[in-house]
């Protein structure tokens, strides 16, 4: 964009700012931005006014939309897009904030351009390029926000579906449910290791009763988790290996270098042993209760 052209658009914006703002706000109000009450008129006015001010200042510098002079505008558009994305606006509604400024600017340009059709055409073109660029930036920022929300939700789902349970002081249980893909297993792994620290637990029982298949990849992930836990000074037990899984593992040649028990109860008994705890019978048996056995 030639420097003098930018300056001339800047002059128009500077000279006619209030009028442009008024026209723009009218267009915005008529559009969908205010509908559904997701944003107040006051907010919209403030945003529009600030945007126009930043635009005037940026235009005066003569650079293009990627330059440092446009940093305040990009930041502002980024913020607006982010909040709109989180508030549930559509990408179009968000980009309309910028695009609806076009008409107001063209009108202002016509008002000031006088008779020079060529100058008006050039100015119109440059204004279009400028606003298109800013509008697209808005959409990209919007996209990015949505992607972050999705990523966060995915992580939350992964974490929610693998809660770590404290069975006793120093013993955690991790009941895995469903299929384990690479991504999920990593989240689970990190979660478990952090839980060891948070709960000051030296043993974690990974129960895979709810896992339909254990292939080489899943087994590898499990083993890495166990190795990491051991590096940190804790240990793991595996429980709930169904007969089919045991067979599959042998066929695949998977070697689990970790103690495995058929049931969570068995694993818990072993864990108690390891930490030097025992379950003993109290003096009075509950009415009708039977000897549940002792874990020594």
């Amino acid at each position, binding site marked *: 964009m030639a420097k003098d052209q930018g300056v001339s658009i800047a002059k128009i914006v500077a000279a006619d700012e209030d009028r442009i703002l008024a026209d723009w706000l009218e267009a915005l109000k008529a559009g969908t931005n205010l509908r559904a009450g997701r944003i107040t008129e006051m907010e919209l006015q403030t945003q529009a006014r600030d945007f126009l001010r930043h635009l005037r200042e940026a235009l005066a510098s003569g650079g293009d939309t990627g330059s440092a002079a446009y940093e305040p505008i990009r930041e502002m558009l980024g913020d607006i897009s982010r909040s709109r994305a989180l508030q549930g606006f559509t990408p179009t509604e968000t980009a309309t904030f910028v695009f609806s400024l076009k008409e107001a600017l063209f009108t202002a340009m016509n008002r000031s351009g006088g008779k020079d059709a060529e100058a008006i055409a050039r100015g119109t073109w440059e204004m279009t390029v400028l606003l298109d660029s800013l509008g697209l930036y808005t959409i990209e920022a919007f996209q990015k926000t949505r992607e972050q929300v999705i990523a966060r939700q995915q992580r939350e789902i992964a974490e929610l579906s693998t809660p770590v349970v404290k069975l006793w002081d120093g013993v955690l249980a991790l009941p895995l449910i469903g299929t384990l893909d690479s991504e999920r297993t990593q989240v689970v792994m*990190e979660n478990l290791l952090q839980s060891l620290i948070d709960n*000051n637990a030296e043993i974690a029982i990974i129960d895979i009763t709810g896992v339909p298949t254990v292939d080489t990849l899943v087994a590898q992930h499990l083993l890495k988790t166990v*190795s*990491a836990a051991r*590096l*940190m000074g804790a240990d793991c037990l595996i429980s709930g290996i169904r007969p089919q899984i045991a067979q599959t593992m042998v066929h695949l040649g998977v070697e689990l270098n970790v103690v495995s028990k058929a049931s969570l109860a068995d694993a818990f008994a072993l864990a108690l042993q390891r930490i030097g705890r025992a379950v003993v019978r109290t003096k009075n048996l509950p009415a009708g209760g039977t000897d549940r056995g002792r874990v020594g």
Partner: protein
Amino acid sequence: MERVPIIKMGPALVVSIQGDMHDRLAIALEEELTKTIVATGAKGVLIDISTLDAVDSFIGRMLDTISSVSRILDADTVVVGMRPSVAITLVELGLSLSGVKTALNVERGMAFLQRRLEEAGVDREDARADDDG
């Protein structure tokens, strides 16, 4: 030159590694610890790595070496406070640190050293009894 402080707590030496370690510091620590174990007759060494956000094979070797040297000098070593991200990375890196005893935190580390001390005391008594008998 900056050194890593070595604190004596009863029969144990406690080393708390702060932030990033350059190689010279690691080598100096090895030497200093060895000298101190001999000078104080310490029976245990606790190394706290909870502030380390990365452990590479050099640091890993240092921990290994300290463990081995201490053992020869009749002291047990325990490394505590390894962060999950570090543990996961070490597994991927392929560093097993098999000769290094680790514990989750300082409390457990000290408990381990205490147990080892008691066991060693019993061993010494047994040895004396054998000599007498």
